[in-house]
């Protein structure tokens, strides 16, 4: 079998990061969307995030890891390009050092794909963008209805305003063949969907009761058993009742602290102009970042004792202990990187 080398390189450079992005973007209840559809479609969809990730990875790599211009030798780049264009393996690549850098670049691309996918997922889900903007909505629409998240859709807004759905009770009318129909009632605990079409396959109820043709209160009877699995093809309709609680307004101080925490951590890890870690080797750079991370963790815990003292026991002693660790780390960093 003949492999088109230039296609393989194009795949590695532009499609693969997009596939990694999609793998980490479609997670949890929406994980089946990653493998839905055919491979040609997946390739096309992966191309756009792949290109963006490639640009970000390139600038991250030359600024933070390689730390020198990547295209300073135009003859080498041109030679590799010409050989790849002719579908032959460039001999320049059989260089251990160059191969190591290429491998490092691929790792950076994968890590950046992962980070961007996580970031996009957090933003879309936490800010409810998938409920507000239909192009961002995930294919598993059953999750939105069964979990009550659909109440935030424009079409259903106002049904239960300022309420958060905690639990869903379903009244399910089931076709029992010759016996006619039966109406079951229970807590909706899980559902499965078809990987390719996204259609409902089955729902799983607990604490199931069955309606009888008697007058209340004798019209409901408990159904023995722990979990009732009802296949979707037997379901005629589902009536959902949401058990809710009053939704808290967004806690802006918590949001601000979370962003501040992340920003300081990124600043410490980036170490601009070598502010914190000076005159050191690659090993020192790595170990130094570990100490900085640990130091910030203790400082963040100390701040937490002031903002949320109720979360901690024996706060005074805890502060002394944290101060002890912070001082130790400052001393280590001072003697290792400044002396």
């Amino acid at each position, binding site marked *: 079998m003949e492999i088109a080398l230039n296609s393989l390189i194009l795949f590695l450079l532009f499609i693969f990061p997009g596939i990694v992005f999609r793998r980490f973007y479609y997670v949890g*209840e929406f994980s089946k969307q990653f493998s839905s559809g055919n491979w040609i479609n997946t390739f096309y969809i992966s191309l756009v995030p792949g290109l963006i990730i490639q640009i970000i990875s390139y600038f991250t790599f030359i600024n933070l890891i390689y730390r020198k211009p990547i295209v300073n030798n135009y003859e080498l780049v041109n030679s590799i390009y010409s050989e790849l264009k002719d579908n032959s393996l460039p001999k320049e690549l059989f260089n251990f050092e160059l191969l190591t850098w290429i491998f490092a670049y691929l790792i950076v691309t994968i890590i950046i794909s992962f980070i961007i996918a996580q970031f996009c997922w957090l933003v879309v889900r936490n800010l409810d963008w998938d409920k507000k903007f239909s192009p961002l909505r995930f294919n598993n629409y059953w999750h939105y209805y069964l979990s009550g998240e659909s109440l935030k859709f424009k079409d259903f807004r106002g049904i239960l305003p300022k309420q958060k759905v905690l*639990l869903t009770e379903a009244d399910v009318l089931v076709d029992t063949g010759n016996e006619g129909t039966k109406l079951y009632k229970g807590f909706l605990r899980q559902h499965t969907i078809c990987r390719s079409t996204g259609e409902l396959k089955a729902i799983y109820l607990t604490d199931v009761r069955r309606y009888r043709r008697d007058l209340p209160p004798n019209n*409901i009877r408990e159904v023995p058993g722990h979990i009732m699995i009802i296949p979707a093809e037997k379901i005629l309709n589902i009536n959902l009742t949401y*058990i809710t609680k009053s939704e808290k307004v967004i806690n802006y101080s918590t949001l601000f602290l979370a962003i501040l925490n992340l920003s300081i951590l990124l600043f410490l890890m980036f170490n601009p102009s070598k502010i914190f870690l000076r005159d050191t080797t690659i090993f020192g750079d790595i170990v130094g970042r570990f100490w900085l991370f640990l130091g910030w963790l203790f400082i963040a*815990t100390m701040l937490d004792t002031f903002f949320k003292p109720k979360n901690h026991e024996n706060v005074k*002693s*805890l502060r002394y202990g*944290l101060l002890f660790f912070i001082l130790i780390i400052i001393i280590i960093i001072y003697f290792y990187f400044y002396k």
Partner: protein
Amino acid sequence: MTLLKVILMSLSASLGLFKLQVLRTFGRETSVVDKEVVDVILSNESNKKKLIDRLNQNNNSSVEIKIEGKEFSFVTSD
């Protein structure tokens, strides 16, 4: 001994905070049921019975509850 206890307490608090952040960042809630409801209502027989009784009598489609510690109460009334 007290010093060791304080040091361990500080380490435990810091690691606890770190664990909380990691869980918040990477934790994926795949269930359609809120975790607090599972802990307070569905895992507690008497609380579960209280909710089921209410739902069996319920003529109104909305049921609002308030969870306080290990107990819950209904906010709306029929």
